[in-house]
């Protein structure tokens, strides 16, 4: 009886082991389909279907239709586009990419791509880099996180960053006539705004304490880094002297120009766009998606009431901004890597980038050349974002970065400092010990 039980236990353990290992079909990280030598101009793939996963609100229907139309012309294959929600996407993508029938092309945030790349979920596309780049110089903030140990796993799709959005009427009422270029001009303008709007809940520049993207800008401006890579090991460096200086500057600025109630809150509870739209803030720091959110929140505002500029730096001309955005990855286990390469090549081509990604959606294109090509068409609600992007940085290309973001470590770091619950040294020490664990 006991022997039987032991045998049964061993057998079930064996089955479990097979099941866990079995997902990869034994071929390691490689794909089962044959890879082409270069990206072909055309292939005969009538009847095949390419599955593409796109994150909600990243690309609109027109952009996707334009890509698909060109794709079908070149290949004869159909495209099945599936829009995915943000909540739970890590689980969804990790499990789906592990199966033998994964989506072929996936849209991944540039801060998340390193994890999938380093762990073997995505196809190594280093050999196709030139074919995909099509003579463009990709923005480094998009390409770097998708590059692990010199191997490329992602293709830049579009960029997004933060800049100051300001309420022209309020600024004019405060007697400000020109957009600030230097830190001194900025603080003088914000002081003028504060003087003109004495209400206690008014913020010259509303800056939620958990808005870590802006916190990082201060850190970078003062020469600090959030993490450093040495001999293949990541270490979290919020506690370095330069980083601490930046955190101190963040606190000073936040406390001086944003209402006290904003010290502990996040940028979406309450939404800073709503506060801005209600006239309770002279400016906010947000991505270009915020423009629409503001206009939706207050129908009396029009685009002509809004302006944008890059936040001046205390050290640099403009503060370095975190370059967000999105890259295309191809599943390592895709059955159609050739079709996936062709589709992606179209999606990142100048044609699509300039006419649709920028022209139709107002997003920042993926390369320096494409940005230069659209520079003449920038209105006042776009120019600030493009200016700010000229000095941009990326988050650490560590697979553990997803966990740092997912566990809200940065929110805690910057909000505890802003509220005075911890000194910069204390908060940085707490953060570093947790982030060190996550990064490696």
């Amino acid at each position, binding site marked *: 009886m006991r022997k039987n039980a032991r045998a049964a236990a061993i057998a*079930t*353990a064996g*089955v*479990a*082991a097979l*099941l*866990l*290992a*079995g*997902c*990869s079909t*034994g071929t*390691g*990280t490689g794909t089962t389909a044959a890879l082409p030598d270069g990206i072909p101009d055309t292939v005969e793939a009538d009847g095949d279907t390419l599955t593409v996963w796109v994150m909600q609100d990243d690309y609109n229907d027109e952009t996707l239709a334009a890509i698909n139309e060109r794709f079908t012309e070149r290949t004869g294959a159909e495209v099945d586009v599936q829009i995915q929600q943000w909540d*739970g996407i*890590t*689980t969804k993508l*990790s*499990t789906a*990419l*592990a199966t033998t029938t994964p989506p072929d092309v996936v849209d991944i945030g540039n801060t998340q791509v390193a*994890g999938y790349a*380093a*762990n*073997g*979920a995505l196809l190594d596309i280093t050999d196709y880099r030139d074919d995909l780049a099509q003579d463009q110089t990709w923005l480094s903030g998009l390409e770097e996180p998708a590059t692990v140990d010199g191997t490329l796993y992602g293709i830049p799709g579009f960029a997004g960053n933060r800049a100051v959005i300001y309420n022209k009427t309020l600024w004019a009422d405060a007697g400000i006539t020109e957009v600030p270029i230097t830190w001194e001009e900025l603080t003088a303008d914000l002081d003028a705004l504060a003087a003109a709007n004495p209400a206690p*809940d008014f913020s010259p520049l509303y800056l939620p304490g*958990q808005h870590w993207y802006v916190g990082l800008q201060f850190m970078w401006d003062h020469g600090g880094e959030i993490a450093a890579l040495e001999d293949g090991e990541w270490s979290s460096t919020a506690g370095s002297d330069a980083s601490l200086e930046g955190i101190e500057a963040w606190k000073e600025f936040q406390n001086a120009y944003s*209402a*006290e*109630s*904003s010290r*502990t*809150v*996040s940028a979406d*509870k*309450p939404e800073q766009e*709503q*506060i801005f739209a209600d006239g309770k803030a002279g400016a906010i720091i947000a991505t270009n998606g915020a423009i629409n959110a503001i206009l939706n929140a207050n129908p009396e505002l029009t685009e002509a009431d809004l302006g944008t500029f890059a936040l001046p730096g205390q050290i640099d001309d403009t503060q370095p901004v975190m370059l967000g955005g999105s890259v295309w990855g191809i599943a*390592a286990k895709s059955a159609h890597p050739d079709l996936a390469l062709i589709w992606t090549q179209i999606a990142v081509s100048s044609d699509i980038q300039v006419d649709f990604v920028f022209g139709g959606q107002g997003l920042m294109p993926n390369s320096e050349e494409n940005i230069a090509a659209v520079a003449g068409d920038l209105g006042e609600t776009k120019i600030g974002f493009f200016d700010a992007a000229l000095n941009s940085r990326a988050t650490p290309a560590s*697979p*553990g970065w*997803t*966990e740092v973001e*997912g*566990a*809200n470590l940065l*929110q*805690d770091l910057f*909000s*505890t400092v802003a509220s005075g619950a911890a000194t910069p040294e204390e908060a940085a020490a*707490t953060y570093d010990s947790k982030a060190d664990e*996550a990064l490696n």
Partner: protein
Amino acid sequence: MTTRPRTGRAFAERRLPPVLLMAPAGLVLAAVTFVPLVVMVFMAFTDYDQRSLFTGEFSFVGVQQFADILTDGDFWAAFFRTIWFTAALVIGSIVIGVAISHLMTKLGGGMRTVVTVVLVFAWAMPNVAASLVWNWMFQPGYGVVNWLLTQLRVFGDMTATDWGANTGLAFTSIWLLVVWQAVPFIALTTYAAETQVGPEYIEAARLDGASEPRIYRTVTLPFLKPTILLVTILSVIWDFNVFNQIWLVSKGGPDGSTSTLGVFTYITAFVGLDLGTGAALALITALLLAAITSVYIRHLIRSGEDDL
């Protein structure tokens, strides 16, 4: 074993019928619950992670995994937090639920229907929707709860209070949300049982001159005991593993101070995709929960089986 004629054997002694009755549920549980559980237990002894998902590579770490968890200060902090928060949730929802059930017996038909409808509405609201409503009601700057509390002029200006950013407030709003949704099930189940208390017992006690509270304590409560026991143990199990509400309100923050075992496991398994450790955590959680509830489980299993 001798075969007796069917009519000669007591119904409860039949051998084949229970096997046939159990078979469908047994098969389904074996295939869709038990097999994954075996996989999970196996995983708990390995370093299975996101990379393993894609490559199928992992190695055994054995009991070291459990040793690491059990010596992790964060784990124990989360564990004790879970214990007292579960206690607060269970006590809160049981006391209010049982009280409401008794209240309903004192109401006229019309008012009782109103209470029932109100309870059903709270119960029926899916917890995804309830959490959205909570976030909206408690939103700093625009939330109605902050506005109401400010109008009371007791707590000062609470307009901009962020409930998720303060440990005490975060727990309070999560407690309110969970209790709000838990009370209807408890109240309605208890009420259903309370309507079956024989009126003759109560009448007899009344004729003996017993006071209303005394009648409730000596007649009604003993009758309700099995029901209350069942809903209590279910509440303990559910509240111990409560996750959605905490995640949606505070994400375990600020600084991990509302991170219960459920949140801790979720972050390990789904944010870090450290599946091996997540599985080990889940096993430990289940064992601790089983140990805590073992006395009651024995009681629950024994109760009501006396006739058999």
